[in-house]
């Protein structure tokens, strides 16, 4: 269905090719997962499929890409619209109309289908993706998962044989991600659509894949194989796979269900160790000096007339890492914004380091509390890393070189002349984090820090956060990433509809929760294990 023959892509002005001599064949009806670090050319690979590379992006493509027998050299993207549907990373950026139904029809109108065909296909697609209730809704009023499903539906109506998705679940909470993946699963099984899917969150998708393509970048050939085979040797793998490797299960389980079925003996071995290990992990994590870093008392915040937070009460000490979880729109981001004074409370009190953040300005504020927003680039202003560091030193009146020193600690080896946009996601996060940390705020807030991060970058982030907490920072992170929360959080707070519904040690809150439990916990429940490293440590101590 999709065939890459000796494809190389060089962008204008680039010294080395993004893709070199790629050969790949995706047969009809397969769901192929594309993994690889940021900056290795995954997106370029995806965009080659419908000819956006090179027709739209520029650059030079040598070799040949054919989709359903059509050569992308001869067919620009619009001529391929009826065979390839491509869903961009941020669905909102690709919407052309303002209503769900019109959006579904847009592609069909462009290729000139007859009205009765369009009517039928819109209805079919609404049913297929469970969008029937939303048909008359404005696109802007939809939640993240709904938008993603509409974006998929919008390209499906032209009946493409190939569907290409770029990180469809990266911005979604676990529930919404499952919605989207279930819809994809259905397309592959019932309609025989060929799906090419790039995703960092392997734990969510690897179980659905027929084959995995690893893009190494830097001129190294693609690695293609069955998920089981790739996962045995993959340097980065979802927790369930790592647990399987640790326990020596064969075949390697890819799903929680498979792992659970194989986990009987492991559970027995771990049972006597559980209480002891939990106590130890809590003891190591609670190295608190008891100094209160922030307090929130009966906080109400409204967006217009809509209450986003209804009576939230929370306190956190220095040395704590608090994970704030909850579905999209539950008020996580609002809570963080209020803590840096971006929202003025409608009632209740917020205090960070003894001051009300919304009354603080400039340096007063950034010396007390720092926020790394969801999109770290928002925080960056300069056009090179060096200039960014200088600007940051000036902003917080620090000694020249402060920011650079922090950056070197978090992500060594970033060149001063690089444009922040050309950094990998992990490096960019590190840069934004350095900018914030240069002012040495005792309270550090992170909004969705793992969005778009690969496992390696995530591991570095985990280490960084632990160091910061050990230095006496109070870290609060809003996240959908249950694995991250399980890994670093000393405390988990669950928000729903602007209210705190659970607040306690990570072990108590996430174990047994269908949404927020990490994979290890799902496999080993009811025992209170959260991460592979905990299990490893316990087994090492026992033997």
């Amino acid at each position, binding site marked *: 269905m999709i065939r890459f023959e000796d494809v190389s892509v060089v962008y204008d002005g680039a010294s080395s090719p993004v893709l070199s001599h790629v050969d790949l064949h995706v047969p009809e009806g397969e769901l192929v997962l594309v993994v690889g670090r940021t900056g290795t050319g995954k997106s370029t690979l995806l965009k080659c499929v419908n000819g*956006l590379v090179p027709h*739209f992006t520029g650059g030079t493509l040598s070799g040949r890409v054919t989709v359903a027998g059509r050569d992308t050299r001869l067919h*620009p993207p*619009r001529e*391929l*619209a009826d065979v390839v549907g491509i869903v*961009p990373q941020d669905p909102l*950026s*690709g919407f*052309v*109309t*303002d*209503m769900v*139904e*019109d959006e579904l*029809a847009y*592609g*069909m*109108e*462009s*290729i*000139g*289908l007859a*009205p009765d065909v*369009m*009517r039928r296909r*819109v209805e079919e697609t609404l049913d297929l993706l469970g969008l029937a*209730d939303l048909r*008359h*809704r*404005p696109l*802007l*009023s939809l939640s993240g998962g709904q938008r993603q499903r509409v974006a998929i539906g*919008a390209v499906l109506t*032209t009946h493409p044989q190939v569907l290409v998705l770029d990180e469809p679940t990266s911005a979604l909470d676990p*529930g*919404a991600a499952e*919605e989207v993946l279930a819809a994809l699963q259905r397309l592959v099984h019932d309609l025989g659509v060929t799906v090419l899917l790039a995703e960092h969150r392997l734990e969510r998708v690897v179980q659905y894949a027929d084959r995995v393509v690893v893009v190494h970048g830097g001129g190294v050939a693609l690695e293609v194989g069955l998920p089981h085979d790739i996962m045995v040797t993959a340097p980065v793998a979802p927790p369930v796979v790592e647990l399987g490797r640790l326990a020596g299960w064969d075949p390697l389980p890819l799903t929680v269900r498979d792992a659970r079925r194989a986990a009987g003996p492991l559970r027995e071995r771990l049972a006597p160790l559980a209480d002891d290990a939990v106590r130890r992990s809590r003891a190591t994590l609670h190295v608190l000096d008891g100094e209160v870093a922030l307090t929130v008392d009966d906080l109400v915040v409204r967006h217009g007339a809509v209450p986003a937070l209804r009576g939230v009460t929370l306190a956190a000490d220095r040395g704590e890492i608090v994970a704030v979880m909850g*579905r*999209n*729109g539950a008020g996580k981001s609002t809570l963080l*914004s209020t803590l840096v004074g*971006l929202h003025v409370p409608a009632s209740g009190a917020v205090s960070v380091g003894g001051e009300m953040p919304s009354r603080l*300005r*400039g340096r007063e*504020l*950034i010396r007390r509390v720092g926020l790394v*927003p969801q999109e770290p680039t*928002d*925080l960056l*202003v300069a056009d090179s890393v060096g200039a960014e560091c200088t600007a*940051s030193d000036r*902003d917080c009146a620090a000694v020249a070189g402060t920011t650079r020193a922090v950056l070197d600690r978090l992500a060594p080896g970033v060149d001063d002349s690089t444009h922040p946009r050309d950094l990998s996601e992990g490096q960019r996060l590190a840069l934004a984090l350095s900018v*914030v940390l240069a002012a040495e705020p005792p309270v550090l807030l992170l909004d969705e820090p793992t969005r778009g991060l690969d496992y390696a970058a995530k591991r570095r982030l985990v280490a960084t956060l632990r160091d910061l907490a050990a230095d006496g920072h109070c870290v609060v992170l809003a996240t959908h990433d249950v694995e991250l929360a399980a890994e670093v959080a000393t405390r988990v707070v*669950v928000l729903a509809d602007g209210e705190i*519904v659970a607040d306690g040690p990570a072990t108590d809150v*996430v174990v047994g*929760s*269908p*949404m927020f439990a990490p994979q290890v916990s799902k496999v080993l429940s009811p025992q209170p294990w959260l991460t592979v490293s905990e299990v490893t440590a316990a087994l090492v101590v026992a033997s």
Partner: protein
Amino acid sequence: MTRRTAHALGDRALPRWTHPGAWWVWALGLATAASRTTNPILLALLVAVAGWVVARRRPDAPWSRSFVVFLRLGLVIIAIRVLFTVFFGSGVGEHVLITLPSVPLPDWAAGVAIGGPVTAEELLLAVYQGMVLATMLACIGAANSLASPARLLASVPSALYEVGVAVVVAMTFAPQLVGDVARVRTARRLRGRPDRGVRAFVGSVMPVLEGALERAVDLAAAMDSRGYGRTGPVSRRVRLTSSVLLLLGVVGVCLGVYGLLDGGTPGLVALPLLVIGVLAGVTGMVLAGRRSIRTRYRPDPWALPEWLVSVAGLLPATVIIAVAVTSPDSLVGPVAPIAWPALPLLPTLAIVVGAAAGVVAPRPPGLAVVRDLGPAAVTLEGVAA
């Protein structure tokens, strides 16, 4: 929807979108009527009619909340008009209300006066003239609230389609730009920089524009991938002819409309110009439309309700233009001497007929705008326990 159900009127009809073109014809009709009278009663009646129809047939969508904004804008215009008269008025009239200290101006500024006596006649005239503009704005506002801009552009002829898309995209960009500005301001605050005032504004222009540009590129890629701009084959001669005809049409329509609204131009010149312009334009569009292979999903039908809505708007315009020729006095708000304005029977009736649009048009489909956050299946009781 079958032809017959499309013809059903008012509340008896199934809820459906009334053709946006019909609402615009109706609203422009009312606006034309407003432009030809300064009689405050008639103007107030026009606003009332527009408001009543909006209240009855406004869909529950983000873009349909603009009527009130237009009304406020109208009030601002009246206020500005009055203030100008107070400060720069010439003081014509008998009833002096107040005398402001006047500022002596050099000789070369003869004819301009600042301050001096303010008369009731002058003020009243200012209010009436302000009301004309405010009423026209209210009519445009009504059309904006009743007809979705996206649906209007979807029903433009295929020749204009690509222009239409550009406009839709621009319209969706405006709210996103507001979001960008907020984001950049947030970032400035987080960096400890000033987030208010001139310096903050200057510092945030570049990032906001950068963001907008990036989104434009994303959108263009998405549209290209979805088949935007696929064309069918068409000969060079047809292309040229259609361009010339379109140009002629635009010029003709502009001159004709100006002539009709101006009132100084004889109707005998203006009307034929308008007709010729429209004919040339339509022919040009049909020719140009041959290039496009686009089809329309659920085009809004133009059935009986649409005809009636259009007539309900055109009738007041026609009657008032006719009355303006035969007995112009009744349409003028009397200023010198100050008197209670007359209530001319025929124009009043015609305007009231304009309200029929709110009765004959079908109700719009209900739009649930309640934010539904996906499957709320997160069993949090389990978590809390």
